[in-house]
């Protein structure tokens, strides 16, 4: 072996050889690098191809899953129809069955059927949500309205369990928003019903807070807190996932299909929010959700603030939570609120305030308090304080409203508020109470039924025995209220089935029947009634939100005697009931609404209060509706009259039907009654074109109505 560096020439040769080797290495490395780069490039290409394939596969899978959801939605719908029949028939057969074992079996079928129906409905809802088939409304809504709706639907149950319910809205939450009232209420209702279900004693608090706000929307947080059994922390996360809580421990806790909360979650997500819950076993839970709502463009026109400015209010309740909630509801308003924890304390306060020359203007009294109750407290105050500085008294009751109203009226208390107290009910009552104070000679508290022409019909209606059938308690209450004012005696049934039962027992002059009811709808119930011996001639008046004429014909064909559209306009209600119950107190030969009856022309052209009654007090909506009415009728009068001269009476009748409905909504009562009259005349068996005089009358009323509405719209516009 040669050792390095002996001979310079050898050394140079060696170095040259090494250099040459290194060059070749470099070249080879270069080639390898190039090959590797190309290789890499091809792999990236292939990865890209695979990625595209995967995303296509994913899309396909999603489409398939959507199709599945859509299929599920259709199926659930299809299943519901026969299921409803099964449930209804099981119930009917059960009522008739003699053998107790058969009765028991049928009752089980009925119960299971109902359970299944609930499950199917939930699946339908959920699959619609997952298939993105549910469109959310974006219309004006009032948060108080949503809470009120929820409270109306749950109050009875909460009361029957002896639970306190409190609703509160943080003062910074804007009251006028846009969103989907129905869906918002659905979620909240689900939470509140659950809370009631799992709370044996204590209270349920519903809060609305402002999470965040930007230029055109707010994120609201709705939370429902109960003092119930609570949920173990490890179960909390699963509650909102569909089907997951269907294991033994959880169905026991949550009942139903277990889909309710999953539906809530989807809905909240659709509303740009989220859901969640916190809980402590044995102490209670808080379920919350958030939803993004748009700020309404309209500004509140009605300002209770002014009416309430500077008023002094004393809140009297033995329950500290109730005191806090009510004071809280009043905090956005410029009123001075003080509280008292008992009747005696309240009396002392009022007397002291009177002596100090700073009398209270309003006394908010809880009815049921130990020792001195609300009514006794009011009496004591009246005895001790001179009339001039006696506060207006508002009685708050968690118990039977009717009972309270009776007792309160005896004690001279005008206003009764039912618990749960919401801001709007409280503020409305307060405003009414204080403005009543200021104008002692002024008009008595307005009663919508009274202004709706009840006086014209009391004679015809007094003593009529009416059965009102509706599955929505609120509707029952409304109708009961309207009819009782007119002197009718009213009973209610909350299902078609119950209606049939009650009618069989006899004692009614007329039935007011809601059409859309679960289990047995109004049409089937009517058929059942008319098949019952002795009831064939009992008049049944349908009440429906359905305005399609062909459906009304279908109702009539099934034996229904007359159809009223929702919202039921009181004078229509009275007129219709009166027409179908010609009885003892009336001259047998007189038609209740005789043609050209002067009463028609006496009805007001435009009754704002009446219209607001239909439109939930929403003045902005009234203006918009009026505008729509003007726009759609401006060019409609001439053609309608032309139809009459062309003797196309059927089409004309339909026109008047429509006019009747739309004018009723607007409180244009003279037009409503006239249209109703015309429609009736045109539909009579031997109808002929109305007299020229009637047509002139119609043109005149129409013109006047339009003029009044235009004025109203213009006034609102400035």
């Amino acid at each position: 072996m040669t050792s390095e560096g002996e001979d310079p020439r050898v050394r140079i040769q060696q170095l040259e050889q090494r250099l040459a080797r290194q060059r070749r290495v470099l070249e080879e490395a270069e080639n390898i690098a190039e090959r590797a780069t190309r290789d890499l490039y091809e792999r990236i290409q292939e990865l890209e191809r695979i990625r595209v394939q995967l995303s296509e596969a994913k899309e396909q899978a999603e489409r398939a899953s959507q199709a599945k959801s859509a299929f599920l939605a259709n199926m659930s719908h299809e299943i519901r129809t026969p299921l409803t029949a099964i449930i209804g028939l099981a119930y009917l057969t059960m009522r008739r069955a003699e053998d107790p074992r058969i009765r028991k079996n049928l009752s089980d079928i009925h119960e299971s059927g109902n359970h299944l129906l609930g499950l199917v409905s939930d699946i339908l809802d959920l699959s619609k949500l997952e298939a993105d088939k549910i469109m959310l409304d974006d219309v004006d809504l009032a948060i108080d309205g949503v809470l009120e709706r929820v409270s109306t639907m749950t109050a009875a149950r909460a009361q029957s369990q002896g639970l306190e319910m409190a609703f509160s809205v943080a003062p910074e939450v804007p009251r006028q928003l846009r969103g989907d009232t129905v869906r918002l209420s659905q979620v909240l209702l689900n939470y509140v019903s659950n809370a009631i279900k799992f709370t044996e004693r204590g209270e349920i608090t519903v809060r609305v807070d402002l999470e965040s706000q930007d230029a055109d929307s707010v994120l609201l947080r709705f939370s429902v807190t109960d003092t119930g059994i609570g949920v173990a922390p490890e179960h909390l996360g699963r509650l909102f996932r569909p089907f997951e809580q269907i294991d033994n421990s959880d169905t026991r806790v949550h009942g139903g299909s277990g889909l309710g909360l999953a539906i809530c979650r989807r809905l909240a997500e659709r509303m740009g929010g989220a859901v969640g819950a916190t809980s402590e076993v044995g102490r209670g839970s808080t379920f919350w959700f958030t939803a993004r709502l748009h700020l309404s463009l309209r500004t509140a026109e009605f300002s209770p603030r002014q009416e309430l400015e500077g008023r002094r209010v004393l809140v009297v309740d033995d329950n500290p939570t109730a005191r806090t909630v009510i004071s809280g509801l009043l905090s956005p308003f410029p009123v001075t609120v003080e509280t008292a924890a008992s009747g005696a304390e309240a009396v002392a306060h009022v007397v002291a305030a009177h002596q100090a020359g700073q009398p209270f203007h309003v006394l908010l009294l809880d009815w049921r308090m130990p020792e001195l109750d609300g009514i006794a407290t009011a009496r004591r105050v009246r005895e001790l304080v001179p009339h001039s500085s006696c506060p207006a008294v508002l009685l708050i009751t968690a118990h039977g409203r009717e009972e309270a109203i009776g007792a309160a009226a005896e004690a001279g208390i005008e206003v009764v508020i039912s618990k749960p107290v919401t801001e709007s009910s409280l503020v409305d009552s307060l405003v009414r109470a204080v403005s009543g104070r200021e104008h002692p000679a002024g008009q008595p508290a307005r009663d919508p039924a009274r202004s709706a022409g009840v006086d014209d019909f009391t004679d015809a209606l007094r003593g009529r025995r009416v059965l009102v059938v509706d599955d929505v308690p609120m509707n029952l209450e409304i109708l009961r209220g309207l009819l009782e004012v007119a002197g009718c005696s009213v009973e209610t049934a909350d299902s078609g089935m119950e209606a049939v039962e009650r009618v069989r027992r006899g004692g009614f002059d007329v039935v007011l029947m809601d059409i859309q009811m679960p289990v047995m709808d109004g049409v089937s119930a009517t058929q059942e009634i008319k098949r019952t011996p002795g009831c064939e001639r009992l008049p049944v008046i349908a009440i429906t939100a359905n305005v399609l004429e062909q459906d009304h014909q279908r109702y009539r064909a099934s034996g229904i005697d007359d159809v009223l559209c929702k919202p039921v306009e009181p004078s229509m209600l009275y007129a219709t009931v009166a027409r179908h119950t010609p009885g003892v107190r009336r001259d047998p030969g007189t038609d209740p609404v005789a043609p050209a009856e002067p009463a028609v022309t006496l009805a007001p052209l435009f009754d704002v209060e009446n219209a607001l009654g239909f439109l939930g007090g929403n003045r902005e909506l009234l203006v918009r509706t009026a505008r729509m009415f003007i726009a759609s009728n401006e060019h409609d009068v001439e053609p309608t009259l032309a139809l009459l001269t062309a003797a196309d009476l059927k089409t004309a009748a339909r026109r008047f039907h429509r006019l009747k409905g739309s004018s009723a909504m607007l409180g244009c009562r003279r037009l409503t009654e006239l249209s109703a009259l015309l429609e009736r005349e045109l539909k009579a068996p031997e109808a002929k074109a109305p007299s020229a005089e009637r047509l002139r009358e119609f043109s005149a009323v129409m013109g006047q109505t339009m003029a009044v509405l235009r004025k109203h719209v213009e006034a609102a516009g400035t």
Partner: protein
Amino acid sequence: MKGIIFILLEKVVIEAHGEGVWDALLEKSGASGTYTSLGSYPDEELLGLVAAASEATGRPQGEILTWFGRKAMPLLRERYPDFFTRHQQTIPFILTLNEIIHPEVRKLYPGAEAPDFGFRRSGPNELELEYRSKKKMCALAEGLIHGAADVFGEKAVIEQPRCMHRGDESCLMVCRFESAAS
């Protein structure tokens, strides 16, 4: 054989004996001497270099390969520390050969023919490796095992009761490891 092995050999030789010796080995064996780590070169070229070294030193070829393996292992650790750092001892390290080290090698060097071993724990500090490869480089394996023991501060004693070079079907290496201090 992958170029990485040739490059390791070059390094080991130059480090121990200088560049002139490497030049001479190349010249004598007729090997090209241009190796890149990712390239593949004939096994004979490696064996030729080993034979040349054997001739120059008068040592058997096996001994040369073993020496190379032992010296190469610390260099492998420098290049691939991840294979080593999770272990404190030689046996657990060797036991990752089939599952981790050589599979990774095959991915890093496309076309690499790294062997799989049969393992048997014959005692707490004893491991038997069964080796069968057409390359028949059990001597290299022995060297790599010694090198690994060096890396973990241990000493390996290896016996080969069976060897392909003696007509057996496979080679069996019985390795005992002890801490280098004792």
